[in-house]
């Protein structure tokens, strides 16, 4: 049975929205970080789905690039979070507002 493309897109949109809302409403930086990963992976899902639909491998290749970039981003991001925790003793995003005008 072939699942129509629409289902993939709906799932991806749902995942993306959950991730976006998570980034916007949660104050814990680790949770926000996980939500960003969720958003990235929802994009990967659309890429793979379209790739499959068109019978073209470009989308799958691109999704690997996204995974690699996300991995690099995770290392940097986690390192930042660890250091921030050591400095402030919290992972509350709203407590980090030194740039407020």
């Amino acid at each position, binding site marked *: 049975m072939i699942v129509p493309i629409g289902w993939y897109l709906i799932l991806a949109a749902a995942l993306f929205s959950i991730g976006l809302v998570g980034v*916007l409403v949660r104050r814990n930086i680790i949770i926000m970080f996980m939500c960003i990963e969720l958003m990235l992976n929802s994009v990967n899902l659309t890429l793979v789905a379209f790739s499959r639909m068109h019978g073209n491998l470009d989308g799958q290749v691109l999704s690997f690039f996204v995974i690699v970039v996300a991995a690099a981003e995770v290392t940097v991001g986690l390192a930042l979070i660890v250091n921030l925790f050591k400095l402030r003793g919290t992972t509350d995003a709203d407590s*980090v*507002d030194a740039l*407020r*005008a």
Partner: protein
Amino acid sequence: MTTLAFVGEYGVPDPGSPAALAWLIPVVPAVSAALLIIFGKRLGNLAGPVAVAVAGFAAIVSTLVFAQLLGLPEEQRALVTTVATWLEVGPFAVDWALLIDPLSAVMLLLVTWVGLLIHIYSLGYMHGDSRYPRFFAYLNLFLAAMLILVLGESFLTMFVGWELVGLASYLLIGFWFEKPAYASAAKKAFIVNRVGDVGFMIAMFAIYTSLGSLAFSDTLPQAGALTTGTAAAVGLLLLVAAAGKSAQIPLYVWLPDAMAGPTPVSALIHAATMVTAGVYLVARVSPIYATVPEVGLVVAWVGAATALLAALIACTQNDLKKILAYSTVSQLGYMFIAVGLGAQVAGIFHLLTHGFFKALLFLAAGSVMHALADNTDVWKMGGLRKAMPITFGTSLVAWLAIAGLPPFSGFFSKEEVLVAALDTPGAFGIWVVGTLVAGLTAFYMSRWFFLIFLGKPRYETELPEVHPHESPPTMTVPLVILAVGAALGGLLNVRPASLVTFWDPEPGFLEGWLEPSVLAFAGDAPYIAHGPAVFLVLVTGLVGIGAAYALYLRPAPEPEMVRERLGGFYTLARDRFYVDELYATTIERPGHLLADGFAAFDRVVIDGAVNGLGTLTTGLAGVGRRLQTGFVRSYALAVAGGTVLLAVIFLGGAFLTGQG
């Protein structure tokens, strides 16, 4: 009408001859001045001898240059030494070039030798001053500047020297700048001189526009090519310049205040050399004045008016240096009379003799001040003859020279100036004024001399704490040498037989010497009325001395009597005819008001615009800064919202136009 051609051509000196090395004359003092400013403190008391050695070097080289010119045939005595190209802009080119001709050679000798004597004198006079090395650095700077002025081969190089002597004069007048009055005297001198400098600059522009060059060797031979209007304008503008530097009406007001400087400075700069720069300028450009004799007459009248005004003021002053300062202004007036009437030789002759006797008078005044703890009021002196025999003896010579008694130098030069006025048609009034001033000169100088050296020693009661003594040899030796010059300087241009017969067709040495570089005097028939004129000047001179004797020496000084007789006029002269006050109300006050207006404009309009822009920016930023909350999540919301907005715009737009 005079001929405009020069005798001879401008040549180039032989390599290796003194004239080819003449650039050393200004350069060595300039380098020495720079080194003394940098290393002066380390040299300490050695700075003086170093500066003296440099002045001596300049004097010796100048003498060699003079000797070289003397050895050349008359028509080859104008040498141009080009050292380097200074400016080259299209067709406009100015070289660092020196003009060595009889006129500049004579000035060289005066400047370097009188300069050397005053350097030596300063060794004693400035001894113990806290800025002793600095003083000698400035003196050397002045020497270098004056020599550039004298040697410059173009209007522009001369102008460089012209400005530098102004700078040196400013630095030296304000040498004791701790006293605010002295510092402001220096500023006054500098600013008044600037007025003249503007005249010089505009004259240069006019000359370059008309003749396409600024070099003397190019412009002066073709002075006849100037239109009458241009020549008149240039003549009047150069008169403004000369009046500024040489302290003539209406720009003479700085010179009396310039006496704030140390006395050797007054002698060197404000009596013997720098103030004669204006006379030198007029003599140098005499071909231009020759094309417009009317402008020359204006120059002469300015000189006559200045001579009279300054002489009247000098009669009423009580400060021994101020009297000499007004006397200098008055004597410069004589030189202007001469050069204005085209009698360049008489003007330069008086410049030289005045250089001797006035430098001597100032140095003698310095010697007196040295002995009396820097007191300058002549009424507190008197009877210094015994305490200071050398100063007294040399002052006696200078007094007789400036009073115009034969056989001292002033007699001959002043005589030539007045004869030039007598022989020029339409200048009879100048002659009358000049003769009158000769009497006044004898009067005020006798007053000066009597009150300081003769009569009762008033200082014993007025200044009980001082004990006058003769100055050290470094000061008295220059006095004696200058006294020889003041006594015998007249021989420079005397016609040997004229001492007996009043008439000798052979020109004196100076006249023959200067003939190639300045135009010959174009008077009617020179020296026709020589005899009576000599007697008249002698009579007025003797009357002046007699009047001073009666008033100030016998039986006792009676200044009150004169004051009562003359009443208001005396007060007028004593208060310097209120010229300073007139300038204060007519120029200084409007200037202040204008400056206040500009200051208000600056505060309100300019500062207002700038500050307004600043306020506007901070106001806008105050609104904009609220966007920066510092909360990461609000930024993320803004990014997400923006993305949605863009998506709505583009997708919605595409949907509406039916391309979706």
